[in-house]
């Protein structure tokens, strides 16, 4: 009974917050509602008995992806008036794209068939006497090992691609070379001088050397 109530409450919150993601005026509120809907989806997983999936959803989506989302959206300088003025102009294009997607979805779902053994499996998704996590691991690392590795390589390629696209040696920023600093010895940096009483720094010749002028910052040329 409690599980049923929890299921309906979480589903309603999930759907409501999903609707608010698209309809809120403030983009930061949208992202916060997105986080709320992720969280409720995780609770639905928990109710279904998939505790591993629920916590992974929280760790990956709520804890990492949505943080970066929020990070970017908060830093964007969004002009709401300009955003709303474009609504009329982009409405036909947006509606067309939406309609095409909707028709395609109807086609795909129309031809959907459940596997014949699905109704039986539905009642015991995990094998008996094995925890949910272990059951998932056994399936993933044996039957689906090829798909698992392929997905991993795909993500690796995407990650390297993103780094290659954004990493360029900007001449405008200065970096600290930690190795050069830790390699310095006492002899290079410190000099002990016996100072006679009453002598000034000029007489002994330990005036601080004039600091070297920093290298001129080069202009960065974009394109070509």
């Amino acid at each position, binding site marked *: 009974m409690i599980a049923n109530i929890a299921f309906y409450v979480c589903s309603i919150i999930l759907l409501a917050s999903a609707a608010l993601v698209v309809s809120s005026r403030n983009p930061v509120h949208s992202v916060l509602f997105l986080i709320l809907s992720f969280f409720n989806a995780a609770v639905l997983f928990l109710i279904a008995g998939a*505790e591993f999936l629920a916590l992974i959803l929280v760790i990956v989506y*709520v804890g990492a992806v949505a*943080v970066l989302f929020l990070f970017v959206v908060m830093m964007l300088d969004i002009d709401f008036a300009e955003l709303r003025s474009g609504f009329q102009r982009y409405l036909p294009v947006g509606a067309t794209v939406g309609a095409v997607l909707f028709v395609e979805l109807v086609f795909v779902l129309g031809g959907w068939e459940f596997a014949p053994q699905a109704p039986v499996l539905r009642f015991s998704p995990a094998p008996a006497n094995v925890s949910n996590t272990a059951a998932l691991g056994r399936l993933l690392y044996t039957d689906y090992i090829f798909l698992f590795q392929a997905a991993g390589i795909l993500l690796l390629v995407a990650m390297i691609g993103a780094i290659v696209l954004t990493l360029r040696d900007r001449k405008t920023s200065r970096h600290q070379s930690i190795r050069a600093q830790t390699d310095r010895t006492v002899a290079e940096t410190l000099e002990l001088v016996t100072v006679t009483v009453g002598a000034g720094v000029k007489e002994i010749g330990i005036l601080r050397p004039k600091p070297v002028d920093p290298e001129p910052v080069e202009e960065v040329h974009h394109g070509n």
Partner: protein
Amino acid sequence: MQSFFYDTYIGLLILTFAEALALLVPLLIGVAYLTYAERKVLAAIQLRKGPNVVGPFGLLQPFADALKMIMKETIIPAGANRLLFLMAPMLTFSLAMIAWAVIPVNAGWAIADINVGILYLFAISSLGVYGIIIAGWASNSKYAFLGALRSAAQMVSYEVSMGFVLVSVLLCVGSLNLTDIVLAQHRVWFCLPLFPMFIVFFVSALAETNRSPFDLPEGESEIVAGFFVEYSAMAFALFFLGEYANMILMSGMTTILFLGGWLGPFGILPQLGPLWFILKVCFCLFVFLWVRATFPRYRYDQLMRLGWKVFLPLSLLWLTLTAAALMVFGWLPNA
């Protein structure tokens, strides 16, 4: 009587409530005295006396501070988002509290001994960043916002290597259950065979809790007080309590993962279970304070370099080595 508490909904509710109180009340007293201990330890290291006026040896100082916080006025800035502004400290505080639900203080002494306990802890600690980032944004102040951005980047960076440390511990245990993790250390505590991971975990814990030397989100010399600049009175107190409860939580996690939880050294005095646990947590907390008194604050680029270029490769390498060693010597659990 037993059937009332275990078989009826109302009984279960009362039982869970009592268990939660039995854990949270000592925890909050611990938080209060951690602030006192911090000031006393820092004072001792810096050859000062520390709080010594309120009560004998200044022992009532935390309560005087709490009373002061309650009496003050909660100020909400005019440009702030009121709802989110008030929600952020509550979120931080309640996240710091609910993580304790799975911590086993002794064999079987956990409110919820769930199968995926360590994942639960990891998930809750990764949510902690929201309290800070929402506070920074809702305050509508540039210092608070800069603090929140720093903190978000920092916490996400250190979580990655922390995840790898957890995986290498899990490889040695073969279970995600916290009780199993402690029991797997009955012969040797994991801080010895996984020593580099222990260090990586502890330093990442410092960064996760925004403690010195990684306290850039609140770097008072550049951004005044970071994300909680605009907070006062109880809202500030909730952030403060959350931060210290998180410190105790991270010390508890270090104890469970690497220092053998409630097990005594060399198996001596097993009947003292919870006392061993508290002693080890206190030791970790002392190291937290010791580090604060000893190291200067990191610069931001150095912090990011340490997380991504030092800890991440190191923890990946050690994870591979651990897996290889377990495989070669046939020490894999559940094999």
